[in-house]
């Protein structure tokens, strides 16, 4: 980023670009959440499981332009996640709060991710979404945090918020937190 654009950015005339990695198990609702954020785009009628990954760009009122790498959560594609660790400034981890049985799988993936060499060097913040809060009998954010062992993450900033991917409820709260984190 040149001095000129840095200057413009600081004035808020052009927005700063931020790369975000969106991960989580398959069916957690990642694509659904990101779809709700694309305000201008016509909402597609149906969201299909992502193959590989997809890139979405959208801007918020925080003078930031988010480029989101929406990764596929299917087992065979999870190896792709780590290739993006060097280039992103934040990670969003989506958890399906209604699926208790898979919490252990999510925990395993999270642990694998946090053990990654690159990520251990980069203390980028992680935003957790306890998605599908509308479904009865699901886990609350604190239960999610217990099930995934989030308390053990001490070396970086993180937060967890309950969301509903279908209505977009709770999502903007999460991104507000992220924008604050990224400003500093």
């Amino acid at each position, binding site marked *: 980023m040149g001095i000129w654009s840095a200057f413009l950015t600081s004035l808020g005339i052009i927005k700063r670009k931020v790369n975000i990695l969106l991960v989580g*198990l*398959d*069916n957690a609702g990642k694509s659904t959440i990101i779809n709700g954020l694309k305000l201008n785009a016509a909402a597609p009628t149906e969201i299909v*499981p992502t193959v590989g990954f997809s890139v979405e760009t959208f801007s918020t009122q925080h003078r930031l332009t988010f480029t989101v790498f929406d990764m596929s959560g299917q*087992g065979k594609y*999870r190896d792709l996640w780590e290739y993006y660790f060097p280039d992103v400034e934040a990670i969003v981890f989506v958890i399906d709060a209604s*699926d208790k*049985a*898979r919490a*252990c*799988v999510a*925990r*395993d*993936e999270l*642990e*694998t991710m946090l*053990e990654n*060499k690159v990520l251990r060097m980069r203390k980028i913040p992680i935003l957790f979404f306890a998605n599908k809060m509308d479904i009865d009998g699901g886990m609350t954010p604190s239960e999610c945090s217990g099930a995934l062992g989030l308390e053990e993450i001490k070396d970086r900033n993180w937060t967890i918020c309950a969301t509903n991917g279908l209505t977009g409820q709770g999502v903007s709260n999460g991104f507000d937190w992220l924008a604050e984190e990224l400003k500093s």
Partner: protein
Amino acid sequence: MRNSESSNRAFQNLRSNRVLGAISSLLRKAPTVSSTSSSSFNRDSQSTIRDSTSTLTEDSSDPVRHIPAESKELDSGADSATNLSQSLSSDTLDAAGFDAEALSARVNPFYVPPNKRASRVLRPSTLNAPDAKHATSSKQIPEDEPAPVPAEKLEEETVHDVWMKALEIESTGILNPFQACTALVNVDGVGNTNLVVADLAGIGKLSNATSQNLNNPTNMFTSIKVFQGHRLLNEHIVPAPPVALVHFYPDSDVTPRIPVTALGSGPDVFMYHANTPFQRFTLPFIKPHPQEEDAWKDLSVAVGAALSQAAECSGTGFVDDEVLQFAWNRIVELRESGAPITRRSLQFISGCPDMQSRRAMVNNEALTPLLIQPDISCMTVLNRNSFTKDAQAMLVVGTEQGILYLVSPPQYSVVEQRTLLSPIAHLGVIGLYEKEFTICCACRDGSIQIISSTKSKSMKRILFDVLLEGVIGLRDHFIVASMKKQVFAYTTEAHLMYSFSVPSPITAIEKVETNSTFCGYAVAMMDGQVHLYDGRDLVSKISANGSVCSIRFGDFGRDSSCLVMITSTGELDVRILRRNARLLPLKPAVPDPAVVKGAGEFQRCAVKIRRFISRLLIGSAQEMYQKFQLDLMHLRLVAERATLNNTKRRLNPVCEASNLKLSAEVKGFGPTYRIYVRLLNAGTDTLENVYVLLAADSRAYSIDTAGFEVAVLFSEQCVQRSSLMHARQNMNEGVSDMVQVFVFEHGVRNRVLIANKIPVPLN
């Protein structure tokens, strides 16, 4: 203690197999003739008792190692191969430019390519890393740390490491879990795999059911339960008690890929597709033994005559005692000769004590034709032409009558059928139907029979002195679990690879194939332990809350690599294998003193070599030698053939020897030509034993002198030869009009010096 254990086991055997057979036959017979049903029940329960006592006596004997007592091979043919291979000289191998390293890997079983030597060493010390909790998933752990931690602790840690507890449900409502009747099926074709259990709930109620209840199948609540995660998604009442449940894809190209769940019961296979009953297939009737058939034919004629006499009021309406006695004797004779006889005959000779009851029975039954309905005892699936999960497959069905059927969808026709010596209890398959396959049948008499598709006559039988609990087919060998806490591994050629004992009686065995890297098996035991093996190495231990009756590995829900266990109390326990988990042997492989030095590496060398060695170890060295010679000869033939093809197909001339000049031409206008060949030794050395070979398409031409020998060719000497060649009358287009000339040196190396092609002038 021991007795109670074995009677427990006997009970389980009884519950799983015998009772099922009895019930299913009961159900089918019940509506027609009640006397038959009671007698068939008698028979079955008798045999159950016999079986359980035999288990008892076996168990109380000394715990000797149970090596198969008898191994019969019905085919042979390696000898001629050995001779042949010896007649071939080994130089051909060099001539083919054979890769020396590949060869040494082939010949020396302990050969390790230099670049792989270091990485082969497997140490349990990886488990002892500071961050032991994730030891198996992290990659940067120093390899050369000592391992002072006791083995116990190591094992404990790995258990927690590799498997994650996903689900634990105390009551699923499954009353009689049993391995053959559970499957992990992607029922509706979307990415959510379900647990399907054909539950024998009705059997549980059997103990206090009255006989009239038994005759009314609607009182039985046998059902197929489909679980999605922890909840029961669907439940169908099934028409008859199931004995086997499998799933497969009947077609190759229909999308979405929705598998068919097939349920074997009596002579029928009921098929469910996307949660709905879909199709039903019935196995054909079996023809009884001709002598038995004859006896009953005579009886039926006699009954017919007696009845017509009775209609004319001139007889008793019953068959003459002599006829009856004669038929009785014939059937008894047949029975004593060891041939299987039908239930009806059995009842006739042993169920009717006096002439009176025999007469009545014959009058009742003789008029209906004597046909045997097969009873399905087990099923499995054989893929047609691809190993992928959703590839088209066919059913392999084993029966109580000892007949094995291969049933091909979508018409569900029997495409192949084999008769074995004993009722089939378990099936394992390896391979593909259209390529090559081997089926291993574990029979009720405690034998396995290995049937292979390649040698159509080959059927190998190995007799154990213990009953078998299960068979599975891994990539290239079968794992056989016995009821006496033992596991055997057999190659597709019926050679024992290894065997070992497990701590507790085995209740179920299941293939565990995670991806291309791991292919092992899980052994569930009565004490609630589940052991995971890679070959003979124990790689993981899991303990469940009760005796595990059924264990399945595969996709479950949205996750792959799940171990789904159902205990005898109907508890469901699902563990998920960590995605990055590496399954390594828990204990360092203890070198067997019997095994030669270098055995550690032996475990990790190519399968074929491992097979050789294991065969050597069990003493069949001669056979191993023959096999090796056969393979070597095969290899040589392949190499020679390739060389030949290469030279034949090559259009441009070959010139290996620069000092030899060849000029050849074909003269004439046909149909007769003359071929002139001139050889000039332009070098300074004398050449010996040079052969010249003329070859042309034999469909078009015949050559009078197809080859000649030049014994000595001095330096600067020129030799000229000629031969006549005739075009054939029926020469048609499309055959090549070329004559090939090969010059080769005969001696230590049969190498081609020069080869050339010359065109034949058109006629």
